[in-house]
């Protein structure tokens, strides 16, 4: 079909095509290089199953913590007027732009065996986060929470606060309005935030390996496994990566179909 406004300029079309190639070629190359007939055997390998299970488990637990902690924080940021709110939001979003390996170092300083919180915690309970599955969850929560908070805050903001006012005139307490009005109205955004947080957790590598090392069955998640496998067995690393690619695409599809439709197309 001819565009009545004239031919699209090559100055835009060529870089755009370049961008597409840059994004697509590596993934296609990876799929093409994977030894597909050997894949079932790779998938049955014990380290992969252990790491995949650990990744799914820790990401799911992490995103539940993100919900329990992030939903209230998002509400505070969206609904309460107070001094320093902008500053608070900036602080909350820092981990979003922080290099994950730095996040790992920061977590060490706070929750390590000699950390500000880690040391008294160890003395009191005999428990320390680093090199445990809980440590993995902690690292995941740290990097994913900002995603969850920011998406849910956006969802709360787009739910008209006048609905809260209507609920109040009908005799609802703030808690009742939150439970019966604010959250249901923001539900699609909350779900999208949780999926984003889950995907972020699943891919988390830098903070996890810095804070927890790489112990199979305990702290070795999929990205960690791919990283170490890559050094010895190229084929296995490809198979593992393909699994992660499939999981990521599945997440993207789940997001697109249910929650990221074009505005107004929602039913």
């Amino acid at each position, binding site marked *: 079909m001819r565009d009545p406004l004239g031919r699209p300029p090559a100055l835009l079309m060529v870089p755009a095509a370049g961008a597409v190639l840059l994004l697509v070629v590596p993934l296609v190359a990876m799929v093409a290089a994977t030894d597909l007939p050997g894949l079932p055997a790779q998938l049955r390998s014990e380290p992969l199953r252990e790491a995949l299970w650990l990744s799914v488990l820790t990401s799911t637990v992490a995103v539940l913590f993100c919900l329990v902690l992030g939903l209230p924080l998002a509400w505070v940021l969206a609904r309460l007027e107070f001094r320093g709110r902008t500053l608070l939001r900036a602080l909350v979003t820092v981990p979003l732009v922080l290099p994950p390996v730095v996040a790992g170092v920061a977590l060490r300083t706070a929750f390590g065996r000699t950390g500000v919180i880690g040391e008294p915690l160890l003395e009191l309970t005999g428990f320390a986060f680093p090199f445990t599955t809980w440590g993995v969850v902690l690292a995941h929560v740290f990097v994913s929470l900002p995603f969850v908070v920011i998406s849910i805050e956006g969802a709360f903001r787009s739910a008209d606060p006048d609905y809260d006012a*209507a609920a*109040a*005139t*009908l005799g609802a307490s703030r808690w009742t309005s939150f439970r019966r009005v604010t959250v249901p109205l923001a539900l699609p955004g909350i779900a999208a935030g949780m999926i984003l947080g889950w995907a972020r957790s699943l891919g988390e590598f830098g903070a996890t390996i810095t804070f927890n090392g790489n112990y199979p069955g305990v702290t070795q998640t999929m990205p960690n496994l791919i990283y170490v496998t890559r050094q010895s067995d190229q084929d296995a690393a490809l198979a593992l990566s393909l699994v992660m690619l499939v999981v990521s695409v599945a997440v993207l599809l789940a997001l697109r179909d249910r929650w990221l439709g074009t505005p107004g197309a929602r039913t």
Partner: protein
Amino acid sequence: MTGGLEVDLAVSGRVTAAFTAEPGSVLAIIGPNGAGKSSLVRALAGLVPAEGHARLDHVDLLQQSARDREVGLVFQGQLLFPHLSALDNVAFGPRARGIPRAEAERSAQEWLGRLGIGELAGRRPRQLSGGQAQRVAIARALATEPRLLLLDEPFTGLDVKVAMALRIELGRHLAAYDGITLLITHHAIDALTIADHVLVLDGGEVAQIGTPHEVSQRPRTDHVARLVGLNVVRDEHTLTAFPPEVVAVSLTEPTGSPRLRWRGPVADVSPHGDAVRVMVQASPDLIADVTPAAAAELGLIPGREVWLSVKETAVRRYATDPDPPGTVAS
């Protein structure tokens, strides 16, 4: 006064108002956009802070939080909860006040029935027409059994026919309602058909309070005069009111001796029923209704200089300020 509503409040920078209303009465609040109507209602509902007092049956509403006030508010644009069915919307108030679910739903069904939409209980707000949604909104406000019902522009955005039907029906419900109703509107017809008293807000202050008859016969501000379709001319101590159909329009200075005559350019021409309504920028602005034939013959287009005149026998004169506004005579 025993019980009832006694208000003397100020919302900073928005509105200052003092008035009373008796149990069972309907007070219409009219005024132009920005007159402070919505601020007044939101202050009474507890959604914006206000100073002063607003005693409802001797209890000061302003000392209570929004949720503790026995006040029902029907918002402009309804604000029905989109994720709840009509029934759940109406049951929301009773449930929030601790009434068990089954009982709240039974009473909600009753309210929907009373407003003639019992069969729509299971629908979501987006599956309702404007008129149906407004009925649900009214049922939702009444289901909490408020002693003060605030209706903020309940007919805005509705189809003209739907609005008229709802107006008649609402009038019937309000007549049976023993609480006090404040009806915010910018349609004179609401004030004149439903209300017992009319309060005119202008520029954040009360301009006039009276019965619909008093206000429509003796408007004290240009705005009220326009709302009820009259011209008002202010002298030092008297107001002169006359309807637009008695105003004669001519291109030359009127002969004879009408004392009441003005000159100015035509500002606007619009159809009004079978006639043509001409707004003229005299001092003050005046409206005149002429026949379409006359409008064509005189070439009444905006900008044309015209003379307006009125016979002395066609006007009504009254004092500017017999009573200070602020009290409702009952």
